[in-house]
C-alpha cells in the first residue's frame, strides 16, 4: 500500500515538472521531435547528459580522425562544441555528412576524414565490453582456488552459472547438436554481449543509455561473426546441400536456380539476424524517446492537456521500459538461438537429424 502511494506521489512530482519546462519552451521555437529522437538513437561526438539553464552538461570524448591531407588528429570533442572549428575540422551542420566531422578542402568542398573517434556509441560499447569481460572473468576467477567438492557458488557467480547452464542445456545443446562444445563459448559470448549492451542501453544516465545494439555497425559485426561460425565450420553435407541439393535435375543443371536460391540463403540468414537485432533495439529506444517527447510536444496545448498527457506518457514509458527489459533479453536469446540453429544446420548430425 505504501508503495502505491509512493508511486502516485512520484507521478505528481513528474507531472509538475513539465509545467516548469513549458513556461520556458513557449519562448523557444517548435520542438523537433524527429531531431531529438534521431539524435539520441544515432551517434554523437560527446556524451550528452542533460541541459541545465541553456548550458549543455556533457562528457567530451576523444576525436580520432585521419585526413588524407592533414594526417592524424587526436583531440577532445570539447573543441568542436557549438559548431566550432579545430585543426581545420568541424562537425557538419547539414549536407551529406550532417553531424559528422568534416574537413574543409582547399577548393571549398567538405571531405569526411577517416573517422575512428570514440563517439558516444563507441564509448558505450567499450564500457559495456570491459564490464562484460570483468563480470565473466570475475565469475570464472571464483573457481580458481576451489575444488569440485566445495559448495556451489552463490550470488553473482551462482547466477552466471545458472545462466550458462540454462543456455547450454536449453539452447546450445539442442540447437547445435553433438559437437556443441566447440561453439558454446562463441554463443555464450554473443548472448552475454548482446544482453549487457541491451540492458545498459535501457539505463538512461551516463554509463548506460548508449544505443549500442541498436546500431547497424554493431549488429553487422555480430551477424558477420555468426556467418563465419556457420560457414567456416560447415560440413561437406552442408555445402553439398547448397550447390547440389536433392531436387529434380532440371532445377540445377542448365540454370542453377535452387543452388542460387540456397546461396542467397547463406547471406540472408545473417542479414536477417543483423536487421532484427538492430531494428528491435533501435525501435525500442525510439518509442521510449517519442513517448517521453509527448510531454514536451503537448506543452503548448495548455496545462490540462499537458498534465493528462504527461500521466499517459509516464505510464506508457514505464510500460515500454518493462517491455524493453523483456525485449533486451528476448533479442539476445533469439540472436543466440538462431545462430545456434544455423550452426547446427551446417554440422553433421546436427539439428536437421532431430527435426
Amino acid at each position, binding site marked *: 500500500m505504501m508503495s502505491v502511494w509512493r508511486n502516485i506521489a512520484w507521478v505528481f512530482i513528474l507531472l509538475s515538472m513539465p509545467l516548469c519546462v513549458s513556461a520556458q519552451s513557449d519562448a523557444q521555437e517548435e520542438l523537433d521531435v524527429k531531431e531529438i529522437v534521431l539524435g539520441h538513437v544515432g551517434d554523437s561526438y560527446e556524451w550528452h547528459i542533460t541541459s541545465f539553464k541553456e548550458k549543455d552538461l556533457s562528457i567530451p570524448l576523444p576525436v580520432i580522425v585521419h585526413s588524407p591531407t592533414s594526417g592524424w588528429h587526436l583531440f577532445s570533442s570539447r573543441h568542436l562544441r557549438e559548431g566550432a572549428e579545430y585543426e581545420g575540422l568541424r562537425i557538419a551542420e547539414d549536407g551529406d555528412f550532417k553531424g559528422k566531422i568534416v574537413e574543409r578542402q582547399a577548393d571549398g568542398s567538405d571531405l569526411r576524414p577517416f573517422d575512428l573517434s570514440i563517439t558516444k556509441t563507441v564509448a558505450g560499447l567499450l564500457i559495456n565490453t570491459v564490464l562484460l569481460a570483468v563480470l565473466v572473468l570475475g565469475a570464472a576467477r571464483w573457481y580458481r582456488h576451489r575444488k569440485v567438492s566445495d559448495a556451489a557458488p552463490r550470488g553473482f557467480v551462482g547466477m*552466471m552459472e545458472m545462466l550458462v547452464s540454462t543456455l547450454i542445456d536449453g539452447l546450445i545443446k539442442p540447437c547445435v547438436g553433438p559437437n556443441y562444445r566447440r561453439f558454446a563459448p562463441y554463443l555464450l559470448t554473443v548472448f552475454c554481449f548482446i544482453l549487457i549492451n541491451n540492458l545498459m542501453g535501457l539505463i538512461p544516465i551516463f554509463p548506460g543509455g548508449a544505443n549500442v545494439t541498436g*546500431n547497424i555497425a554493431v549488429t553487422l559485426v555480430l551477424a558477420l561473426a555468426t556467418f563465419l561460425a556457420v560457414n567456416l565450420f560447415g560440413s561437406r553435407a552442408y555445402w553439398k546441400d547448397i550447390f547440389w541439393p536433392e531436387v529434380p535435375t532440371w532445377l540445377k543443371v542448365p540454370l542453377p536456380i535452387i543452388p542460387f536460391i540456397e546461396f542467397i540463403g547463406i547471406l540472408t540468414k545473417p542479414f536477417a539476424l543483423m536487421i532484427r537485432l538492430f531494428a528491435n533495439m533501435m525501435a525500442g529506444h525510439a518509442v521510449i524517446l517519442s513517448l517521453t517527447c509527448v510531454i514536451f510536444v503537448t506543452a503548448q496545448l495548455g496545462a490540462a492537456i499537458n498534465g493528462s498527457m504527461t500521466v499517459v506518457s509516464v505510464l506508457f514509458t514505464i510500460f515500454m521500459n518493462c517491455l524493453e527489459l523483456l525485449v533486451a533479453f528476448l533479442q539476445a536469446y533469439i540472436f543466440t538461438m538462431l545462430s545456434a540453429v544455423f550452426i547446427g544446420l551446417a554440422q553433421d548430425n546436427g539439428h536437421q537429424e532431430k527435426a
Partner: protein
Amino acid sequence: MGLLQPESGLLFWMLLSFVVVFVLLARYGFPVIVKAIESRKQYIDDSLAAAREAERKLDSIRADGQALREAAEQQQKEILLQANEMREQMIREAKRKAEAEGQRILAAARERAEAEREAILQDARQQVASLAVAITEKMLRAKLEDEAAQSRLASQLLDEMEHRQTN
C-alpha cells in the same frame, strides 16, 4: 539514411572490442565456468552412486549380521540340547553303574553268605558225624551183648544213614 549506414569508425571499434572480448571469454571465461558446472555435475552423480553403493553395502552387512545372529542362536539351541542330552546320558550312565555296582556288591555278599552257610553246614555235618560216632560208640558199648540185637541195630543204623544220605 544515416541509421542504416554502418559507420567505419564504429565498425572498427566494434570489431576490435568484440574480437578481444570473444578471445578473452572463450579462452578464460566460459570454458572455466562450463567445465566447473560439468565437473560438479559429474561429482554429484559420483557421490550419488557412492551413496547408493554404501547403502547397498550397509544393507548386505545388516543382512549378514542377521544371518550370523540367527546361526548363533541356532548353535546355542543345539548346544543346549546337546548338553541336556549329555546330562541325561550321564545320569543314566551313573544310574546304570550304580545299579551294576549294587548288583555286584549284592552278589558278592550273597556268595559270601552262601560260602559261610556252606562252611557252617560242613561244620555242623562234621559235628553231627562225630556226635553220631560218639553216640554210636556209646550205644554200641551198652547194647552189644546180644547178637541179634547187634545185627538189628546195625541194620537199623544203616537204614537211617542211608535215609539221611538220600535226604
